[in-house]
């Protein structure tokens, strides 16, 4: 009941409070925390976080209603080079001019940039997120008259129509409008200005200027804003930007993580917009648009015909409004007369509002979901290819108390024959929350501990947070201070805030030299006690500032020449990046890093894994893990997971088992628990539950070759590993809102049990042409149906798609590295045409040598009763000891004989078993090396 919920909620506070009190006594600012401690209730304390109404720019911008835009394109200013169109826009109300830049990018994308023509001072343009300056394609001016310009894009029949008055952009293909910008007239660009309310009389020359402009009123919150007791000084005044996008024919939009909400985004007419502002939200609530730890300003729009995407490259606080077209059809200008459109066409309108910076938007035109992934990947890069071990199981807890604790948990896994790859240390492992150090009593000999893990081919992760204890006896602090690397407060001093260590400074990760220095701190000689099997976890990098506004940094804090306001959502990405670079550099660029982050931005996929933050041991939190990771996958971040078991509170054994079963089929598989919760290592809930958890972790390990190959694929293409159903079945509207099940790659369909006391689940099996095989019973089911599946506690409904071949390793050992040389079993699931296809990817599992063509990549296919393995990367070189020990063909008929033909033409007969009850053929021990050419004929 709610009471018990309340009870646990406060534990979190308590811990934070206790930690703080332990560190420093009698510090006035602690009163803040005390108040929080005392007023703790379950669920987020909403009053700690702003609503749109409390964020003055959002309130101002949202107050603008759709209507005629005051902006007019000055066609006479148009300049068109081969690759770029520029054009001035004027706001007829205040006469301020903007500069519009329009680019056609390679890969079916259009980039629209709008900045002030002559800003009072430069406005922030987000650096370091794009992997390169996106290559352009020629634009051709199609026609030009006093009403506007028509530009043709690329080779396709796409055009951009620039309407002059009011200014709007329409992107059309053939007779279809794909997307319109400023069609609702909500483009708004708050130009930088001198402060008038308190300034002396403007000088004469300015005066003249002023008279030309319509007097702009100074609204409350433009030059100063207070939230709770926090004051934001806003020296630059109002600087917000906003723009609306209309998506005709679209009823489904996705993305803009991170929110604890459904996969399909909701309209926001009756509440706040979705907010993107990286925040440490204590005990977040589900199913609402509040901001969370990370922000990726990318939205996907989808209908049966096409998928498009909007990437709004802005790192300031951002709000996104979504409405659908019940409000009526957009009025089209006469330039668009030829465009057919009926009032019945569904339409979604979205509107982006950011506090500062410029408008820099990438319009990705698909047309398929996979095109979108590749377009977005070409802009911001792909998922980093993680070490194979990081796809295994991670055992975490706040905290493993000491080396003996680590040793005994490690031994527990062997005793109970449960595999795991990583054990994690949270903040208590440090010497007084001084990162890069070890508690001298509890972790007196970290290298012994790490060696102990290494002897079992296992690894460790230790936390390194970006808040640095202000302590003149702490080397890291002294170095950062003396090098001037801290973020500054508005008055120029080092910014200080409260976090785990008490008073802390925040390194300015936006500075390249700061990041380089930070990275160097991970070298083995700098980070004492570290070894090559120690990896890193960046938490609290929103950044979390306990006594700051909304538990984060003051917006008027200063990063070089920019305000924190401008860079906020990028901070976490930079921390993640610098840490990852440190791990690469310590091995001389040889070893792949593994770094987990809580805060993220567009591009964070390049640096490692993310998790969904501090969730709770509740069934709804288990459910929400699916849409949260699916949404991240859509915007490039594949390596996603939720704390298995739930961070806050204590799960019932049933919930814990169900969470393991779900987590084992999600990309990042880590159990984690709050300090105040009872211990929950997998063997602490009785032999039955231990067996259930063991079984599903072992299932995870049998699928590691498939997971690994999918991550390689994600690294190459940007396609998500964990996929929403509509990505693979884009023409089936029944899949569009499904978020209680998901695909891994395209070949595994998972419908986890997320209801308490469930006796059955109803899974939707997509695809009219498809058949699906239960991976446990090998039962075959037809696609395009809702299938009721009775479940017991051991059930985790997973299906392999007919037409696929999945390589697995069934010899589960205590860690992934122990399985390196083990043989494969190929699961060949036949479709209705009796064919199947799959891949096999093998490399050393941990270095960058795959970039030097040291890998095996083979295509496996079955047709005409012959299964073959062919090399799809003949230029690559790698050898493996692994061999094929078994081939299991699902949906097969019984052959008379099975003949193996190896690369040298040698033929041999193979033994096999046929189970007629489920039509499964098991071919015994063909024994060929996994890297070789071979074929196998069924006669």
């Amino acid at each position, binding site marked *: 009941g709610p009471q018990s919920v309340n009870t646990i909620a406060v534990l979190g506070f308590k811990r934070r409070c206790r930690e703080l009190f332990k560190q420093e006594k009698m510090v006035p600012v602690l009163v803040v925390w005390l108040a929080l401690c005392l007023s703790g209730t379950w669920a987020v304390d909403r009053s700690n976080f702003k609503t749109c109404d409390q964020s003055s720019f959002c309130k101002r911008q949202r107050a603008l209603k759709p209507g005629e835009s005051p902006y007019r394109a000055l066609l006479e200013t148009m300049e068109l080079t081969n690759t770029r169109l520029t054009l001035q826009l004027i706001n007829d109300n205040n006469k301020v001019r903007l500069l519009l830049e329009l680019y056609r990018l390679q890969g079916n994308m259009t980039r629209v940039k709008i900045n002030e023509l002559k800003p009072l001072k430069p406005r922030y343009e987000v650096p370091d997120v794009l992997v390169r300056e996106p290559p352009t394609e020629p634009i051709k001016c199609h026609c030009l008259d006093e009403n506007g310009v028509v530009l043709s894009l690329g080779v396709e029949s796409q055009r951009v129509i620039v309407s002059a008055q009011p200014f709007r952009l329409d992107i059309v293909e053939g007779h279809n409008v794909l997307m319109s910008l400023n069609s609702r007239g909500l483009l708004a660009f708050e130009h930088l200005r001198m402060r008038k309310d308190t300034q002396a009389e403007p000088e004469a020359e300015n005066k003249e200027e002023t008279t030309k402009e319509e007097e702009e009123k100074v609204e409350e919150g433009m030059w100063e804003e207070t939230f709770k007791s926090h004051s934001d000084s806003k020296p630059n005044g109002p600087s917000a930007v906003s723009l609306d996008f209309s998506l005709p024919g679209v009823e489904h939009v996705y993305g803009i993580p991170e929110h604890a909400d459904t996969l399909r985004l909701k309209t926001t007419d009756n509440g706040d917009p979705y907010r993107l502002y990286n925040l440490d939200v204590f005990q977040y609530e589900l199913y609402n648009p509040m901001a969370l730890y990370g922000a990726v300003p990318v939205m996907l729009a989808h209908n049966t015909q096409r998928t498009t995407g909007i990437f709004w490259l802005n790192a300031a606080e951002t709000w996104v409004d979504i409405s659908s077209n019940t409000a009526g059809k957009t009025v089209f200008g006469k330039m668009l007369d030829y465009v057919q459109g009926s009032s019945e066409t569904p339409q979604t309108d979205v509107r982006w509002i950011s506090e500062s910076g410029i408008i820099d938007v990438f319009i990705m035109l698909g047309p398929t979901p996979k095109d979108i992934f590749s377009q977005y990947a070409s802009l911001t890069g792909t998922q980093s290819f993680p070490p194979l071990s990081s796809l295994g199981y991670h055992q975490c807890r706040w905290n493993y108390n000491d080396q003996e604790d680590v040793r005994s948990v490690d031994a527990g896994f062997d005793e109970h024959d449960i595999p795991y790859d990583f054990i994690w240390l949270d903040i208590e492992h440090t010497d007084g929350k001084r990162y890069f150090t070890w508690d001298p009593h509890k972790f007196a000999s970290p290298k012994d501990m790490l060696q102990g893990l290494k002897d079992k081919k296992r690894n460790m992760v230790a936390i390194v947070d970006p808040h640095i204890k202000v302590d003149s006896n702490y080397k890291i602090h002294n170095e950062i201070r003396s090098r001037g690397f801290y973020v500054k407060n508005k008055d120029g001093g080092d910014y200080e805030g409260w976090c785990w260590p008490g008073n802390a400074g925040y390194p300015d990760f936006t500075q390249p030299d700061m990041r380089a220095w930070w990275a160097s701190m991970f070298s083995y000689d700098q980070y004492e006690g570290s070894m090559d099997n120690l990896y890193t976890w960046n938490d609290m990098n929103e950044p979390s500032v306990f006594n700051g506004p909304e538990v984060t940094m003051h917006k008027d804090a200063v990063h070089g020449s920019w305000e924190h306001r401008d860079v906020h959502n990028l901070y976490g990405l930079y921390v993640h990046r610098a840490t990852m670079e440190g791990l690469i550099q310590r091995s001389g660029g040889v070893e792949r890093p593994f770094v987990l982050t809580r805060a993220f931005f567009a591009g964070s996929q390049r640096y490692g894994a993310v998790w969904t933050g501090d969730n709770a041991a509740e069934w709804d939190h288990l459910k929400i893990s699916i849409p949260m990771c699916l949404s991240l996958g859509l915007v490039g971040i594949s390596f996603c997971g939720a704390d298995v078991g739930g961070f806050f509170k204590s799960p019932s054994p049933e919930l814990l088992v169900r969470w393991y079963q779900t987590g084992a089929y999600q990309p990042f598989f880590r159990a984690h628990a709050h300090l105040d919760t009872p211990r929950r290592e997998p063997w602490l809930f009785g032999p039955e539950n231990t067996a259930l958890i063991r079984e599903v972790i072992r299932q995870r390990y049998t699928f590691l070759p498939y997971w690994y190959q999918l991550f390689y694929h994600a690294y190459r293409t940007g396609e998500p590993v964990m996929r929403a159903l509509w990505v693979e079945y884009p023409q089936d509207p029944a899949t569009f809102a499904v978020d209680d099940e998901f695909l891994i790659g395209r070949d595994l369909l998972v419908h986890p049990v997320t209801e308490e006391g469930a006796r059955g689940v109803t899974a939707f099996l997509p695809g009219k042409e498809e058949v699906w095989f239960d991976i446990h019973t090998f039962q075959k089911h037809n696609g395009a149906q809702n299938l009721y599946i009775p479940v017991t506690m051991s059930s985790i409904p997973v299906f392999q798609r007919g037409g696929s071949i999945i390589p697995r390793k069934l010899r589960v050992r*205590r860690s992934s590295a122990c399985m390196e040389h083990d043989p494969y079993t190929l699961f060949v699931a036949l479709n209705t045409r009796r064919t199947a296809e799959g891949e096999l990817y093998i490399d050393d599992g941990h270095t960058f040598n795959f970039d030097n063509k040291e890998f095996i990549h083979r295509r496996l296919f079955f047709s005409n009763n012959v299964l073959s393995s062919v090399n799809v990367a003949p230029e690559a070189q790698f050898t493996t000891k692994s061999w094929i020990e078994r081939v299991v063909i699902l949906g097969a008929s019984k052959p008379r004989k099975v003949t193996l033909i190896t690369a040298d033409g040698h033929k041999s007969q193979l033994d096999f078993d046929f189970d007629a009850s489920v039509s499964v053929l098991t071919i015994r021990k063909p024994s060929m090396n996994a890297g070789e050419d071979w074929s196998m004929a069924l006669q």
Partner: protein
Amino acid sequence: MFWYLLLLWGGISAVEVQRPRGVPLSKRPFYEENKPFTCLDGSRTIPFDRINDDYCDCQDGSDEPGTAACPNGNFHCTNAGFRPTFIPSSHVNDGICDCCDATDEYNSGAECQNTCRELWRKEKESMQKLAEIAKEGFLLKQQLIQEAKRGLEEKQTKLGEVQNSKKDLETNVEALRTAKEAAEQPEKEAKERHLKAWEEQNAAIRMEKDKVRMAEVFIELDADGDGFVSVAELLSHSEMDPDSSDGSFTEAEAQELLGGVDKVNTAAFETIWSKIREKYVSESNTDGPAPVETPQEEVREPVSDNDSEPYPDDDIPEEEDEDEDEDEDEDMDDGDYKSPPVTRTDEKKDDSEEGAMPPYDQETQNLIDAAQKARNEFEEAERALREVDDQIRNLEKEISFDFGPSSEFAYLYSQCYELTTGEYVYRLCPFNRVSQKPKYGGSETNLGTWGKWAGPEGNVYSVMKYEQGTGCWQGPNRSTTVKLTCGKETVVTSTSEPSRCEYLMEFTSPAVCQEAPDLEVSDIHEEL
């Protein structure tokens, strides 16, 4: 290649025993060379060459005792020189040395040393050490048992004595109770007489005063001095409005007050005085009725006792902070303020000048003194009886306490043992409580009071459980598990908190020592 060639030294003659890799001697008969093999679960029969051929044919894994092919198989480490053991098949050739004889890593490239003899030597040493401790401890335990026995006898003797003395005390108490009651009766009567006389005197005085006041009021009301109080004169005193809530004092109401006439003289005024007396406000007293007394200071909720405070050791700074959250805190307190303030119920102030009751006369005082003396003597005797009862209870409790099969743990009763760690001093008072006190100041936290023996079946006296300690804030109550091991000394050797608020303490005592144990040589085939 999948066969062991084992040379076994059985006494003087060497015997060669061949068996598939990973099979224990006990199961060797099931693996008959060159004969079809039936899986040990009987599920199927396979050719002999499929044993240890690195492919799993049997569901129970019995065809692959020496490889990692079966997910549920076991590998037998002979571990000559040490203890044989089974390891999961998944540990075979995984590059990690598990068997001390290195037989599990025959094809992984791992360089494993045979460490069986070294292990055996170490184990022997430590077992010898343990045996020595156990031996000495066991001797000490015999003494403890003797002491406990003596102690028990002493206590039983004491109990008998005390129980006897209790009877005398009970008789005494009864006698004194009678004496007390006898003395209290005349005391009570005398006091009542005294009180009654005083009250009568007071009544007379009050009546006199009331008459004086009535006369004064009449004169005050009779504004025109005509010797009558009229309706008009009464109306000037709005406080007299019988239904004051309607805000208007009408003539009719005034007339009714006057008994239905327009005016009254002093005699008639007497008859209506009782209706006027309470409400009337003298004109000379313009302030109206005395204002409600406000308490001098808020009586705040008392600070709860330290034990239930979340952070007993942390002083919470009281300094002002501008953060909003602080304000919220204030708001919360405001809620408390809204409840009506509790007026202090001081002794009701007498508005008359009656003064204190006059002292008792000598005769009454004598009776009171005599009764008081009898009361004191009675209470004294009762207290003595209670003390004896306590003593009996404590003795009975201790005598009936479960101090182990031979009362060997009795010596721990009413003792305490401490362990100082970096931060805290831990204190174990067996059969009583466990506590923790910060080393550098701060109050003590109760980690649990004696609950029960909680060892596993057959060894119940190896674990103590202390429960219901100080509650963790909004969480469970603290509890401590004390694990007892054999030692010559009685000491707390370690404490930890494996899970939040659940403590683990290790404690050595000779009372746990068993008779000098076997070296369990039978378990280790050093000579095999």
